[in-house]
């Protein structure tokens, strides 16, 4: 590089009294020569309208902070509450059981049986128009309570998988909701399943720990509560 001021001569904290002395003006390259002076400030005033705009923004900020601070409490997560009281009243409006059932289905079943209820061919059986869903309720309830393992035929197609048990994970109410949901969705039309009937099946097979096999399910004793009441 052309203009070598040696490194050691500038490596001190205090500079030479007159920098640039070593440079002959003819050595300076064009870029430095044509430069403008260093930038300087102009002194236009802040436009008046700007102060109003900023005032409005600051006002909004203050209002927002005052309204949504949740009392600055660590336990208040809902910004709409000002921490006046700690408890959030749970909504008491009843929710459509089909909606609840669908949520449970999406959360627990859809990963395998798909949101469409069509399953995945060869892997996860469909629920739409399935004889296991629409047929004898005792089989369906017990599949959920204890799981199912081994070869299985659904709508003429063979499967050989492992459905986990949901008896421990879901309560009778929840099982009732999700089973009722699948029995009325995707073109299915079968009566809903009551929580009491789930409880009865749970009690009848309380000792069981293994998943069912297809043959065992087909030979289940009839349901103690024979007929589900509609609605």
């Amino acid at each position, binding site marked *: 590089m052309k203009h*070598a*001021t040696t490194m050691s001569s500038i*490596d001190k904290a205090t*500079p030479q009294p007159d920098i640039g002395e070593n440079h002959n003006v003819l050595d300076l*390259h064009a870029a430095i020569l*044509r430069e403008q*002076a260093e930038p*300087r400030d102009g002194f*236009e005033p802040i436009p008046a309208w700007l102060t109003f705009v900023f005032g409005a923004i600051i006002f909004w900020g203050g209002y927002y902070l005052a309204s949504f*601070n949740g009392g600055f409490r660590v336990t208040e997560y809902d910004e709409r509450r000002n921490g006046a009281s700690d408890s959030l009243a749970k909504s008491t409006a009843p929710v459509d059981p089909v909606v609840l059932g669908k949520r449970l289905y999406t959360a627990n079943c859809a990963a395998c049986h798909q949101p469409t209820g069509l399953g995945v061919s060869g892997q996860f059986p469909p629920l739409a128009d399935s004889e296991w869903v629409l047929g004898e309720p005792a089989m369906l309830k017990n599949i959920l309570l204890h799981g199912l393992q081994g070869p299985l035929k659904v709508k003429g197609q063979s499967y050989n998988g492992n459905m986990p048990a949901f008896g421990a994970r879901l309560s009778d109410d929840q099982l009732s909701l999700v089973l009722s949901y699948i029995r009325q969705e995707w073109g299915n039309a079968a009566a809903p399943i009551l929580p009491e009937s789930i409880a009865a099946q749970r009690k009848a097979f309380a000792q069981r720990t293994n998943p069912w096999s297809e043959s065992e399910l087909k030979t289940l004793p009839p349901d103690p509560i024979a007929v589900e009441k509609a609605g």
Partner: protein
Amino acid sequence: MSDQTISTAQTESQRQAFARQRAAIDASARWPVLGFFTGSVVWLLVGTGLALLASIKLHSPEFLDGPSWLTFGRIRPAHLNTVAYGWASQAGIGVTLWSMARLSRTELRYPRLLMFAVLLWNIGMLVGTIGILAGEGTSIEWLEFPAFAPPFFALAFAIVTVSTMVTFSNRREPHVYVTQWYLIGAVFWFPWLYTAANLLVIYASVSGVSQASINWWYAHNVLGLWMTPIGVGSTYYLLPKVLGRPIYSYQLSLLGFWSLALFYNWAGVHHLIGGPLPAWLITLSIVGSVMMLIPVITVAINHHMTVLGSFRQLRYSPTLRFIVFGAMSYSAVSIQGSLQSLRTINEVTHFTHYTVAHAHMGAYAFFTMIMFGSIYYIVPRLTGWEWAAGGLISFHFWSTSVGVLVYFIALTFGGWYQGLDLNRADVPFMTIVRNTLPYLQVRSWAGILMAAGHLAFAALFVMNLLHIGKQRSGPTLFFDRPDAATLTVIGDASGRTV
């Protein structure tokens, strides 16, 4: 005597004296600044390659898969860290060191230590990036380098801060220009941020959601208190410098700086809206984010009024074109940011590709483009050699500007639709995934365009370092100016620009 007196009042000998001073300052800064710039260009290319890989893997998941170090979950954080710390930070440090020395009108202090800092920084980059690809990444966004990497950066940055502040405290120029305020802020804020975040989150036993709030306080401040001050500060320096006009309003400069310092700090937790944090923390960050409209509008007016009447210069000057593009992007992305921190908008955009588009508008369309413009201005003054080909610079500009705009539009729309669908519980998740694919593919094409621009930039940089190309006496411009012949004369008192 100040170099900031009105140019017509400077005598010929004064101008020569200032020119000699600038040459000496540039000589003192040459090795450290070129060192950091070289590091930045290398990591720009690495980071761009990782970016293309990550982008393609999102819509073609089996592209180049197999070994663990090529999995998307490692490539993506490797990309972020290489471009944020390898490219952006090193370019920013180079610009900071040179600008502070020039504006203080004194040589850059401790250049040999700074060369050591260049070495440390790039070693840190290498071990950190390899660490992420090897599965040692921390999965804490913007802090993914494993624990053995941060000490390199902390030490390197301590050297940068000391050099910058000692240079400043030995200034010959009595007036402290607005750029210097921003640079002082940046070199003070970043080390504190970096050290505190690493100590608390990586090294100490802070766990649970405290980690999250510290993480995003840090990550957003990397943008707001490190990249933004350097980008805005560099704009404040190079716009008036190239145009030969004063900055519009000192009062606006003051307002812009202090409101940024006050508000930007508080915005970070807007990354966690809807998350497991108490309402007060989220609300504070939303307020801070919206208050950012104040410094952004202020700076936009200040810059715009400075350039007003000289927009035709954008036809000629690469520096000006990149910087004005970046400054306008800054206004746009910041206003977008203030809006998307509002809960109603955030409900749609959070967790989607919309946020990714916004991030690239800020880190790329704003910061990276300003760094390109700054490097185009600074490097010829350090190497004594003009850029080899205006055509290549033009290609660089168009491919990167069009590329980032296509990127932004694709992922903004894609992300918005993604967010709307995510909020409809009856839309199956896989449908949403499928709907994003065309936008992700467009993003890959945009990325290829941007990568081509980076290759052109790297080629120009290498050619300049090696003094390849014909020797010019005038600047490398996009087009020849009608008055080009007079541009090499010393002390042009007419205020003509270059």
